[in-house]
């Protein structure tokens, strides 16, 4: 239970500095607008902001009232308005409507827009068009790395996924490059760099440019983190589409972990209140079960409950002095543990109830069959039935995508099922992003490709045009799975208590592709021998390594690896790599554009009102 790290495992760098930096910068920006002001904050920025600053800090810097940015007229009477927003067009329109309303009313105020993590030219263009350019001052709050845990940094940019992988907009690549630059400024250069995926390669190149322009800053510093690995989400959609069964992943799938904390409703807290709970390494109970397969969690919790009982029982037969000691020294800790324990037991209970109701067992069985590639017909009819029953549209979409990718586009039959007009746009998006790969007849595809490639002169666009890349993108999952041994051969029962490989995060049925790639490359310190896999991943032009001399890197730093997930990573992947780290004496640090799961991926693909 909760395997300890090997004694030689390296220490993690202290990332709390990132919080301090972000806070200092925000304070500096607020001070740029001296005097009392009202602060309008975009909803998506509230949770990240909460993790680094609080109301009293804002008050200290003369923030008078706080408002949420929503599409309502502002009631603020302050002479100075400050907006803390993501660089989005709709925010600009909102601000413009406020400013223009003031102008009409003959009112003059000071306005400041703070873009986080950076401003976009398109936003400025809207300000200009709305006639308020110059009336508002603009600033940037480069808060792009939020440490959610000791080993997890999140950029909190869920829109990265849709913007890049669906729309092909590269606007966040510079943000990623800046974040990597900041990390190398703080924690020294990375002697070994690896990456796979088109976006990974671009982010890497842009980052390198940045470092060259501002050279000198990192030179001479000893590297603290020996390796960096960049990976595009579309290299491995399959893993992200699977139901999660490690505790942290299940909690995320069931209750949605948001910015490192979760809302436990009354059904979990067994009271009439909901509780907001931070989930990280400091929750001692959670820390021991987060990476466990769900089936191990009950046993652990009951053991823990009995230990706790025993510790409380000790107070019987204590004399006054011992009792005093007990109360002053142990009681608080015990109470804390008690509270956490009852929360996680409540959460487990609630998960069990929900999962039993939705026939989770059969769902998992279907997923495993898809991953292993047997009983396709049965799985297909299961999915069709799932769609018919309209259990949950998001779930059905997820299963269809899983079927389509694992079967390389043979999902026709289920697509034809009557699914209602409302998902027309979603389907089109899923196809464009390569999450649904319908089988196009070979000839048509080649014809289209050759016609288009004749037109293409855009060097940067690569050999075939992007417009058709998703069509051309065959998933080849089966072949990759075989090459990389993703389906472990098991004699007898897979013992989930003593996992033997990363497959334990999916009940022993499947080693996450993303994690397997990382493992293989780290083992070889290159892509050597993986050419065929890279080709099957359609990444021949986008797999890279870059090594510098390692003489300055300590052996400890060489066992620290920063993995960068572009487009999001799941808790299952994090758990799998933590496991790999424990086995090999590495420690992984995760940097993700956002923590994701199958439901978030699907939701990102649906169309809503503009």
């Amino acid at each position, binding site marked *: 239970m909760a395997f300890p790290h090997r004694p030689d495992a390296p220490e993690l760098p202290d990332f709390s500095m990132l919080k301090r930096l972000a806070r200092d910068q925000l304070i500096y920006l607020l001070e740029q607008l001296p005097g009392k002001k009202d602060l309008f904050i975009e909803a998506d920025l509230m949770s990240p902001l909460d993790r680094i600053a609080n109301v009293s800090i804002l008050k200290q810097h003369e923030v008078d009232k706080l408002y949420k940015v929503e599409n309502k007229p502002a009631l603020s009477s302050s002479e100075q308005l400050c907006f803390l927003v993501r660089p989005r067009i709709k925010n600009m329109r909102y601000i413009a409507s406020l400013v223009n309303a003031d102008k009409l009313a003959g009112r003059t105020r000071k306005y400041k827009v703070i873009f986080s993590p950076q401003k976009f030219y398109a936003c400025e263009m809207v300000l200009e068009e709305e006639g308020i350019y110059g009336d508002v001052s603009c600033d940037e709050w480069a808060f792009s790395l939020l440490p959610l845990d000791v080993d997890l940094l999140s950029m909190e940019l869920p829109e990265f996924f849709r913007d890049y992988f669906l729309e092909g907009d590269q606007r966040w690549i510079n943000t990623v490059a800046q974040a990597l630059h900041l990390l190398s400024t703080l924690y020294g250069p990375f002697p070994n760099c690896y990456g796979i995926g088109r976006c990974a390669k671009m982010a890497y190149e*842009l980052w390198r440019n940045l470092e060259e322009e501002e050279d000198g800053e990192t030179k001479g510093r000893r590297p603290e983190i020996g390796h960096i690995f960049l990976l595009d989400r579309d290299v491995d959609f399959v893993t992200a589409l699977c139901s999660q069964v490690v505790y942290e992943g299940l909690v995320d799938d069931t209750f949605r972990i948001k910015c490192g904390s979760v809302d436990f409703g009354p059904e979990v807290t067994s009271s009439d209140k909901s509780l907001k709970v931070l989930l990280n390494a400091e929750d001692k109970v959670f820390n021991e079960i987060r990476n466990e397969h769900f089936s191990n969690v009950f*046993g652990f919790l009951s053991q823990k409950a009995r230990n706790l*009982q025993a510790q*409380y029982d000790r107070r019987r037969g204590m004399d006054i002095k011992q009792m005093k000691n007990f109360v002053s020294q142990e009681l608080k800790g015990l109470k804390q543990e008690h509270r956490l324990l009852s929360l996680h037991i409540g959460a487990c209970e609630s998960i069990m109830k929900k999962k039993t109701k939705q026939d989770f067992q059969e769902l998992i069985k279907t997923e495993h069959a898809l991953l292993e590639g047997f009983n396709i017909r049965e799985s297909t009819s299961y999915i069709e039935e799932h769609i018919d029953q309209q259990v949950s549209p998001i779930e059905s979409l997820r299963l269809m995508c899983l079927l389509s990718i694992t079967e390389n586009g043979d999902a026709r039959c289920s697509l034809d099922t009557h699914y209602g007009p409302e998902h027309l746009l979603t389907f089109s998006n899923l196809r464009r992003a390569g999450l649904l790969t319908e089988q196009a007849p070979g000839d048509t595809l080649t014809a289209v490709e050759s016609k288009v490639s004749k037109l293409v002169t855009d060097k940067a666009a690569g050999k075939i045009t992007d417009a058709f890349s998703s069509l051309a993108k065959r998933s080849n999952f089966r072949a990759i799975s075989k090459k990389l041994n993703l389906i472990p051969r098991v004699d007898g029962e897979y013992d989930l208590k003593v996992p033997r490989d990363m497959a334990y995060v999916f009940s022993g049925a499947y080693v996450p592709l993303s994690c397997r790639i990382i493992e293989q490359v780290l083992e070889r310190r290159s892509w050597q021998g993986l050419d065929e896999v890279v080709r099957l991943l359609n990444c021949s032009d986008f797999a890279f390594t870059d090594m510098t001399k390692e003489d300055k890197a300590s052996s400890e730093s060489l066992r620290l690896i920063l993995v960068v997930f572009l487009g999001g990573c799941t808790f299952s992947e994090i758990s799998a790599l933590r496991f790999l780290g424990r086995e090999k004496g590495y420690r992984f640090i995760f940097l993700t554009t956002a923590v994701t799961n199958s439901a978030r991926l699907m939701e990102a693909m649906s169309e809503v009102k503009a």
Partner: protein
Amino acid sequence: MNRTKGDEEEYWNSSKFKAFTFDDEDDELSQLKESKRAVNSLRDFVDDDDDDDDLERVSWSGEPVGSRTRPGSFQSLSDALSDTSAKSYAPELGRPKGEYRDYSNDWSPSDTVRRLRKGKVCSLERFRSLQDKLQLLEEAVSMHDGNVITAVLIFLKRTLSKEILFRELEVRQVALRHLIHFLKEIGDQKLLLDLFRFLDRTEELALSHYREHLNIRDPDKRKEFLKTCIGLPFSAEDSAHIQDHYTLLERQIIIEANDRHLESAGQTEIFRKHPRKASILNMPLVTTLFYSCFYHYTEAEGTFSSPINLKKTFKIPDKQYVLTALAARAKLRAWNDVDALFTTKNWLGYTKKRAPIGFHRVVEILHKNNAPVQILQEYVNLVEDVDTKLNLATKFKCHDVVIDTCRDLKDRQQLLAYRSKVDKGSAEEEKIDALLSSSQIRWKN
């Protein structure tokens, strides 16, 4: 459960977990329940005083502020400012980037692009020849920063005719995708449609037009808009969906008007007993079918709101129809309707039970809708596969079915095992005992 301590020890540590399944509801849940009881028994002692363990300090946004973070990470402001080590790393704490101005005209395309990436305002006006403009765009694309690509595109859009812009972008796919996304975001639908037309991307053109319906609130206007979408060059499959979408909304508008009237008049029993939770407008097809099975089940096929009419109009497959009707009627506990749904008559007039979705599914749906055991039992008995039948009967506590099936299988061991699961002194127990002591049965084990 009154286990001795030793028993309990063994229970917790037994190897049952190896073959964990989420179906092992009893075992896993009872285990959880025990832990819960243990923890709860401590509550009296624990929950006496301070409730301020920081788990739940709610701030202005409803989020916990600084709860349970490392001590010291929320240092005071003065600490933060005097922390020199952090300050020296702080990037660009100088003047805000936006205030840099640069009107120099001497920057090369690559310098210009680099300055743009740094967020500096710099004029693009001097790039007047097409060649210069395209070179600027190419530099931006090769730098990979989408924000800069868009900045250049905004400039090109302003200074080039759209034909020239489109023509040049057609062969620059990366830039083209940025322009499309930009137009979507700022809502320049007209130019976007022009672009798709120019590129001859008819399907995207159609989808993009169709997408606009999401922004139309008024149901009648939305319906009229959908009408304009019919006949656009969608794929064959999508065309049918668009037609359906229009027909569906047209239906919903009629049903909604009618039912709202019925409901407010208060004369119709079904609406009085089960007031509608929401309007049916813009609901998916299956939801509409459910609604009509719920409120309009008995209507003749000729009416727009009758389930059969919906089924025919939208070619809803049999399975789908049965599933939906079953769920709706079970929810109303209309067991006769449920029965009729699965009863077919052959040409000799004999009735037969048939379920296109399989009776195991029927049982599950009935169970989800809290059907009583007598009803469940009836359908469990119709499950053909004996193992499935036995599993379902056990799961849903249809004792008679389990007992009879064991008897038919002549499986004495299983019957014996099941005896421990029924209540002591119950009729079921008696029935089992009678069977077990019967000399008529030739048990196989």
